[in-house]
């Protein structure tokens, strides 16, 4: 392995928390989706790193699944963003708060 596992884990953790902060802090729906993507890819990076560390393919297979799932998820969520934009003329999440108890 060219890169030590520690570095990889540090990177993916950093990426994960950057994504998380992006999700929590941004008001823009698209930015939140991007944050989710970053988090997912951080996890994927960890899986790939771990898979090559232990010399097992499972992690890499899982990442392929993850990519397929992510693309599906992104297409659906973007479609929904378009739809929501049509309803409210806005993609600010603060305008989608009718589902309150």
């Amino acid at each position, binding site marked *: 392995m060219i890169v030590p596992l520690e570095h990889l884990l540090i990177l993916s953790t950093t990426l994960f928390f950057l994504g*998380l902060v992006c*999700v*929590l802090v941004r*008001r823009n729906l698209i930015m*939140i989706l991007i944050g989710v993507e970053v988090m997912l890819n951080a996890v994927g990076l960890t899986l790939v790193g771990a898979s090559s560390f232990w010399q097992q393919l499972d992690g890499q297979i899982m990442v392929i699944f993850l990519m397929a799932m992510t693309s599906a998820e992104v297409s659906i969520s973007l479609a929904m963003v378009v739809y929501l934009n049509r309803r409210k003329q806005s993609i600010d*999440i*603060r305008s*989608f*708060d*009718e*589902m*309150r*108890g």
Partner: protein
Amino acid sequence: MLALVLILPLVGGLFNACFGSRLPRPLQALIASGAVFASFLAALACWPQATGAGLHVNLFTWLQSGGFTAEVGLLFDPLAAIMTLMVTGVAGLIHIYAASYMADEHDQARFFALLNLFVFAMLTIILADNLLLMFLGWEGVGFCSYALIGFWYRKAENARAGRKAFIVTRIGDLFFTVGLLWLFSLFGTIGIEAINGRAAELDPTTLTIISLLLLGGACGKSAQLPLMSWLPDAMAGPTPVSALIHAATMVTAGVYLLCRMFPLVSLSTMALDVIAVVGMLTALYAATCALAQTEIKRVLAYSTMSQVGYMFLAVGLGSVSAAMFHLLTHAFFKALLFMGAGCIIQLAGHENNIFLMGGLRKRSRSVFWLFLIGLLCLAGAPLTDGFFSKDLILATAFAHGDPFHLSLYGLGVLTAGLTSLYSFRLAYLVFGGDYRGEELPHAVSKVMIWTLVPLGISGLAGGFLNLPHFIGGHAWLSHWLGRDNEVPNLSLQTEYYLLALAFGTFLLGWLIAHLRYHRFVEREPGPVSGFFLSGWRCDAFFDRLLIRPFRQLCRFCWQGVDLALIDGLVESFSRACFVWGHVLRYLADGKISRYLQSFAWGLLLIVSWFLLRAIA
């Protein structure tokens, strides 16, 4: 034949209850009185078979379960025979009287159906050969009494009087029930003869308690202290009902019960003494109350209570024949008095208050004489039946000789004087002087007056039933009941002294009444007469003692337990749910950023959990 005695009134009552309202009115009355008279004739036909141990008829088995058998069996012994004849005879006359008295009332069919059912239930008490069947009749008369007192149920006070009578007698019935069940558990049988035959096996304490329980039952039905307060209020019912139920028959059921169970009761001296004391105190109490009453029927009600007290005294003295003798004579003259009172009330224009009567002698001579006969019997005028029967009781008390019984005798004589006093007070107020009422008098139908005549005759001649030996009689009743040994054994001279004393108290009562009432004076009721008028304030006392605490208990159960505790629990639970729901709904406030934030916190929690586990 014996079954007919019982079944005829039942059939008459059921027929009137089912179809009576569709029949013309005279027919309803005819069916009812016909049924009772036929029953009387059937009883007469059975009469010869009533000697010795009596006629025993088993109609059918009512209940059978394990060792317990309840037969519907009839026992027609001398005691039952004489009661049956009295009840059916007096009831027959009262039915005819009622047909005339109630001619203008609505709901005659209901009235006669209940009257017939009452006779049926009363005969069940009399003829039953086991305690359970007797209890059935016992409850039956209670129910009929309740329904008849409240016959004019549209007036609230009548309905209340009916309820009061029912509830107070139920308290007595409870004692009877306990006694009955206890006897069954001891002997495994409810047959009256079997229980009486084996009563000697019991230990004295049990015997005394059972006897006192029976006394409690008898007190309820016979309006003795302390369960007496229902009888004066029961006068709210129609007058024939008062005559039948609350004078001649039902109130004597208690005496009859004690006579029936006498072999058992008599084994406990203490129970006998308690019975005598209860009877004597009631007699005295009721006589004092009767002195101050203003309503004619209430005077008679208290006098009934007082006379029934004498009967209890007789039972307590161990003399069944004296009790039965007084029961019979009392039934005749008290039915006469009540029916006469019904006539008087009609004469005075439906007025009950004796202070608004007066001068009624001029309005109807025949009613005057017949009522006077009744009053003389009640007061114990010499040679009337009341004189002999009361004298027999007092002589029996005197013959015991010990201080306890002598003091009972003294109280008895005092009560006899009071009886004479209130009887003549009634006579003077109702018949003497001038008419003080405002209502126009109504005529009294001939039928009503004619039904009084046989009762008047039996009132005058009833003494011959049990004429004592020392004035040439044969004490037939005592002999018939097989109780010759109960005839008091006193010297001739003592007997004459006792008679003279009885006569003296009678005259004294008359004299006082004459001095005080022969000229009507409007008097302000003093505190004493107010005290007597309200029945020694017993109603208020029971109200304080029982009804108010009960009400308070009920209010506690209602407001304390039901409203506060149970409703409070349920409602506070629902309120807690509501409040928590209100709080929790802020979690779902629709703000997506907050949802995401909570995801993050959740994630933090899960991760830290795994980290902690990894460290530990």
